[in-house]
């Protein structure tokens, strides 16, 4: 695939790249619609509930989630720097920032697992209440996206190390960066809704 991609002329590559980019953005928009549906469901359930969370249900810890959010947001910043260093031909810093992004992504997932453990231990489970169902569905869906994103980033890092991408042709990296930023931005909405909204 890499060899084939490098044999097309620049004008053809640019055209194909633009089409791929548009297709990828449509994919992200479809994902936004999926999250929007769940978020709408959460807002509806919450606004019609007598008390939120229901009495006797332990809510998720706010400050732990704040720290975990910063871990994920930090990974967005390192991803951006990785892209910039790749564009400027600094492979060593690119690899360093990509690894940092992957580690921060895994740390976020670890933080989420820790949060789940605490909530389950406190009796807040998926079937225990509508709060638990909504919380675990939304954060679980997002966590799954982060997990896929980590695999995506590991894949493009390996491809970059193998020389699949050049300073002129790096669509896979662009897609990886856009996906990771998307995962970050969705978390801004989820953090505000699930933890901050009183």
């Amino acid at each position, binding site marked *: 695939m890499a060899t084939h991609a490098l044999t097309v002329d620049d004008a053809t590559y640019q055209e194909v790249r633009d089409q791929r980019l548009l297709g990828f953005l449509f994919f992200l928009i479809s994902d936004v619609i999926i999250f929007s549906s769940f978020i709408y469901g959460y807002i509806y359930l919450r606004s019609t509930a007598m008390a939120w969370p229901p009495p006797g249900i332990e809510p998720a810890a706010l*400050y732990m989630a704040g720290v975990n959010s*910063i871990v994920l947001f930090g990974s967005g910043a390192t991803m951006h720097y990785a892209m910039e260093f790749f564009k400027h031909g600094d492979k060593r810093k690119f690899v360093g920032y990509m690894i940092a992004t992957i580690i921060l992504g895994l740390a976020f997932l670890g933080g989420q697992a820790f949060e789940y453990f605490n909530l389950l231990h406190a009796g807040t489970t998926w079937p225990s209440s509508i709060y638990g169902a909504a919380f675990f569905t939304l954060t679980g869906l997002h966590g799954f996206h982060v997990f896929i994103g980590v695999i995506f980033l590991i894949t493009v890092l390996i491809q970059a190390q193998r020389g699949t991408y050049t300073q002129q042709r790096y669509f896979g990296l662009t897609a990886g960066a856009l996906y990771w*930023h998307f995962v970050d931005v969705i978390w801004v909405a989820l953090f505000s809704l699930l933890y901050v909204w009183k």
Partner: protein
Amino acid sequence: MDLDVVLRVIAFVGAVVVGLSALQSLIAEWPKKGLDDHVTKVMLALLALGCVIVIFVAFGIFPGIAGPTKG
């Protein structure tokens, strides 16, 4: 020291560092004209907004449903 205070300090310091990085990246990205560059600008701006929200949480301005005494 209370765990909540430690978490709030970490969240605040992290949010300031990441937020400033996002703003710096946004300023550097601003002159670029590609479609992916425009999307990246929106993403970085929202990332900075997320950091502002975390700063408000760290200061207790947004107490959240858990409340400042419940972690």
